[in-house]
């Protein structure tokens, strides 16, 4: 009972966080548009009438395409059932879906030598689990099952909603910063004459450049370390075998990455950070140190 209640609280908090992130994004965009209007000398009502629909539309689009943008950033493709490794992966994901009582997620594969996996989607009925080909080659059945159990728990706890939306929002902000910067460079290629429009663009670019890292921090908080421990524990409960995930994490730790693939914004979604193997425990790390996770799994 108590565990059930805890889980419901956790799910509620995840939903609330998602709303907060979308609201922040709307306020941010709206204030930028409002500022442009103000600089151009437009009446506030006019700026509001234009700014609000644009901000709502933009966030709406980012929200509804968040899953696609994550999949695109990871360069993932649907699993091919004719390949034996990928067929076994599909079976394992079906197994874990049955064990957790959830609908089966879509199975995606990312071509990469790295051992990694992530789950994404807005709700459990419409979720995706993506595993790297490196993981399929290097992990045995028991270890793969441990990793899938961990991802399945993220889906069950609704961690994927807040994580996916935040990742998409950060991506969108990075894109805006880039657009502002590019048009600034393109516009500044002329005779060095600085018009009012360029100053506005400069302000916006700086604004977004400052904001992008702040939002990245938000992602790190969204996918807090507590969620990882919880997903480890729930995953072990699903497979009834904490040792499987512990061994998989050991392999991930020992694995030297030649060339990490995928974009940096997607990093917090993975089972282990593909860019830095966080061995130290810092406030900003997306994942708890692997050694600590292994230790906790072994003491279950």
């Amino acid at each position: 009972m108590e565990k059930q209640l805890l889980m419901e609280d956790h799910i509620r908090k995840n939903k609330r966080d998602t709303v907060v992130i979308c609201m922040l994004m709307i306020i941010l965009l709206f204030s930028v548009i409002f500022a442009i209007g103000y600089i151009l000398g437009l009446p506030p009502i006019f700026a509001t009438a234009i700014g609000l629909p644009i901000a709502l539309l933009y966030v709406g689009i980012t929200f509804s395409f968040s899953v696609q943008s994550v999949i695109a950033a990871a360069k993932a493709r649907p699993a091919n059932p004719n390949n034996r490794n990928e067929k076994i992966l599909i079976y394992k994901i079906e197994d874990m879906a049955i064990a957790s009582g959830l609908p089966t997620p879509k199975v995606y594969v990312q071509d990469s030598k790295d051992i990694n996996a992530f789950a994404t989607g807005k709700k459990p009925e419409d979720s995706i689990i993506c595993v790297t080909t490196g993981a399929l080659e290097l992990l045995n059945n028991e270890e793969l099952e441990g990793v899938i159990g961990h991802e399945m728990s993220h889906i069950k706890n609704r961690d994927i909603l807040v994580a996916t939306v935040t990742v998409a929002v950060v991506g969108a902000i990075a894109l805006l910063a880039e657009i502002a910067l590019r048009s600034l460079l393109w516009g500044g290629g002329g005779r060095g004459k600085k018009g009012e429009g360029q100053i506005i663009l400069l302000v916006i670019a700086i604004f977004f450049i400052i904001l992008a890292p702040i939002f990245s921090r938000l992602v790190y908080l969204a996918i807090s370390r507590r969620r990882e421990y919880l997903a480890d524990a729930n995953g072990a409960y699903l497979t009834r075998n904490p040792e499987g995930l512990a061994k998989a994490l050991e392999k991930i730790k020992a694995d030297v990455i030649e060339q990490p693939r995928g974009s940096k914004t997607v990093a917090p979604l993975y089972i282990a950070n593909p860019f830095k193997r966080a061995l130290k425990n810092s406030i900003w790390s997306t994942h708890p140190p692997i050694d600590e996770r292994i230790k906790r799994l072994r003491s279950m």
Partner: protein
Amino acid sequence: MIEWILGITILIIVLFLLFIFFGYYNRIIRLENRIDNSWAQIDVQLKRRSDLIPNLMETVKGYMKHEKETLENVTKARAGLMTAKTPQESITADNMLTGALKTLFAVAESYPDLKANQNFLNLQDELTNTENKIAYSRQHFNDTVLSFNNIVETIPGKWFAGFMNKKARDMLQIPDADRAVPKVAF
């Protein structure tokens, strides 16, 4: 004035009790539906498994001419699965089938031609897959039964369950004898 306060207090208490009752009623019904659904999941897998056996027999027959007993055991176990009536009977029968298949796959190791047969390999994968799925759906069934029983057997859920005439459900057990590793005779 006193009557008013008393009346409102009683009304609040009654509403409160009603609210709790609805909560428990819905939770018990929801869990019961979940138990039925997870049994349906197991049933689907059991059906799939018994559908795969004739294919397997057809593939294996040509190679394993001298393993009559092993093949017969598999067929017998499948027949048991088809005639099982209660969930526990089905699980017991399925367990026998798992044992018989384990022997068959162990024996198959000594037939290199068979082991190279793509159809056989696919069937072996499929059967292992359904076996895992049955194990996991049984686990999920038992998890669900556990949360149902926890409500139905503790106070105050026990009172509501008594009122609704709901009793604790049985978990699916694996029979001890079948848990032992099956003997492999060559």
